[in-house]
């Protein structure tokens, strides 16, 4: 018999602009992005990461903490994580985190994971749809000095400090065994994320960071003051903690813009246009003439 053991899990998530549904008014004339025209969503593969952690909790026991780094408004994805079943959530926000590339981001998140205390498993989505880099997960694993299992599709088994996981590639699969702690980046094919629970949505509706108190007071003036609201939320475990660079004890030179070796030199709007084009009537004669032309020009053999 193996002794019963539960697992401390951290899920790292990101709020992203919904780049998969970009419409005309999002791209401005000068090629810049009108971010405000895009809805902010829970990064899709981060939902798969959260789901994987929740399933491990259900099967083996443990605690799931969800963390995000972003502006104060990123608290929205943390509430969503609570609705889906996270035990604890936490916001990392600080102007000094801003402008971070993947190296600075991974340093910030590494500091936060370490500050949380003992952990067994870290889950991230494979990549975020606003950058598609898939770099932050492996970079955090390296900084924590733990193995990484990228493209994770399932946790096959957990026994004591040993895990077997399945990885998925475009042309194959792989099964790996690894000692904990380790970090997994989770792919979309891993699972179907559960929807938010209606019960939790009611229970956690008021969950908020102190940065949101002022706005909440205008909505619920009956709380009278930020102090009273804070006491109310803290008592019900609905206060979302906020950590800044000072809380992390981080090396300021490695955060945000200062800690980012990559710089954006320029950005071009994608203009793909052809100069010569022909309209072909969608009737048998038009199509037959087109095919003849292609044959004549040796495009079709």
């Amino acid at each position: 018999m193996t002794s019963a053991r539960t697992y401390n899990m951290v899920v790292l998530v990101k709020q992203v602009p919904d780049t998969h549904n970009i419409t005309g008014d999002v791209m401005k004339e000068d090629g810049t992005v009108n971010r405000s025209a895009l809805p902010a969503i829970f990064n899709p593969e981060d939902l798969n990461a959260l789901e994987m952690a929740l399933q491990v909790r259900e099967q083996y026991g443990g605690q799931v903490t969800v963390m995000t780094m972003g502006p104060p408004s990123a608290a929205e994805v943390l509430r969503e994580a609570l609705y889906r079943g996270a035990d604890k959530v936490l916001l990392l926000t600080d102007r000094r985190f801003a402008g971070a590339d993947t190296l600075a981001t991974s340093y910030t998140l590494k500091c936060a994971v370490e500050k949380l205390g003992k952990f067994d498993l870290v889950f991230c989505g494979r990549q975020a749809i606003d950058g598609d880099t898939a770099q932050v997960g492996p970079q955090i694993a390296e900084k924590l000095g733990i193995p990484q299992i990228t493209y994770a599709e399932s946790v096959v088994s957990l026994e004591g400090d040993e895990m077997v996981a399945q990885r998925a590639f475009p042309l194959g699969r792989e099964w790996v065994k690894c000692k904990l702690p380790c970090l997994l980046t989770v792919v979309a094919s891993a699972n179907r994320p559960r929807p938010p629970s209606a019960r939790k949505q009611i229970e956690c509706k008021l969950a908020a960071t102190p940065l949101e108190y002022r706005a909440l007071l205008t909505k619920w003036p009956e709380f009278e003051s930020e102090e009273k609201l804070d006491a109310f939320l803290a008592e019900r475990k609905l206060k979302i903690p906020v950590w800044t660079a000072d809380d992390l004890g981080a090396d300021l030179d490695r955060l945000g813009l200062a800690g980012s070796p990559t710089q954006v030199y320029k950005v071009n709007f994608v203009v793909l246009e052809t100069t010569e084009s022909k309209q072909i009537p969608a009737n048998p004669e038009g199509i037959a003439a087109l095919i003849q032309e292609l044959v004549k020009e040796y495009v079709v053999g």
Partner: protein
Amino acid sequence: MANDRDVWVFIEQGEGRIADASLELLAKGQELAQKLDSQVCGLLCGYQVKEMADQVIHHGADRVLLADHPELELYRTLPYARVASDLARERRPCIFLLGATPIGRDLAPRVASAIRCGLTADCTDLQIGDYESKKDKQVYPNLLYQIRPAFGGNIIATIVNPHTRPQMATVREGVMRRAEPDTARKGVIEKIEPHFDERDLALQVLSRETRESTVNLKGAPVVVAGGAGLGSQENFELVRELAHILGGEVGASRAAVDAGLVSREHQVGQTGVTVRPRLYIAAGISGAVQHRAGMSESSKIIAINTDPNAPIFQIAHYKIVGDVDKVLPMMIKALREKTK
């Protein structure tokens, strides 16, 4: 001699052959090295892969760093990252390129983090040029311009790493052209003795299952691609039939793949494969910029769509406004009659 202007290319190999992405990078690396007046160095890791070192030279390397070790037989992140990080930290080449393959995208960030270097993912072009930093008003000559689509493919960003070396990037498969091997090319093979500790071997591969791709989009002279506009499996069969008659390959938009009309291997575009065939037929594809990014360099493009304002028409040489389920059978018929 190795120097700090060197261009390194990670040579990905498996099942006895070098990955296409690596061969493509050797050719691009050679072009960059000539501009920098330096040399190309291939980093080849594996077990009993010595005979591949010559191929690396034939495809454009001046030097091969050969790490041949039983622990490197099957790719695993940690031992490979150990070799690459130790070498890059010690020698600090100017540029370090990896294919944006599942392996390259797993290894590169681990190495970049270990040696604290900037890394750009999924580049579609690389150039050498000067950069004037707005931060410190200094001009940095001969930097690597790392060019990649961003924000869902709606913009193209040029990224630079002025301060850290190497300048690291992963590069999309299929966008660079590989060179014909030159068997007369000579180069130096330098053996590397890797040192692993227990932590490098913390992960074990229990088993691995791979299948051969049955889809060869990259090499196809003709690609007939279907989109969500086809609506049904039945209509998608028309795409397959037309591709078959033309001796081409079946492509698809992300929407068609997501709708389950065809497997993901067929996806063309920013998150799929980049193609540049002689003829590209886009059937029922609206042409989101993500898709166009993967096929806009095709020699001739025929677009069929019911919506005359579909963005695909902006890059089409032949525009057919109509229903795909009517137009495709007309094309099939016209081609059949031609070959009679």
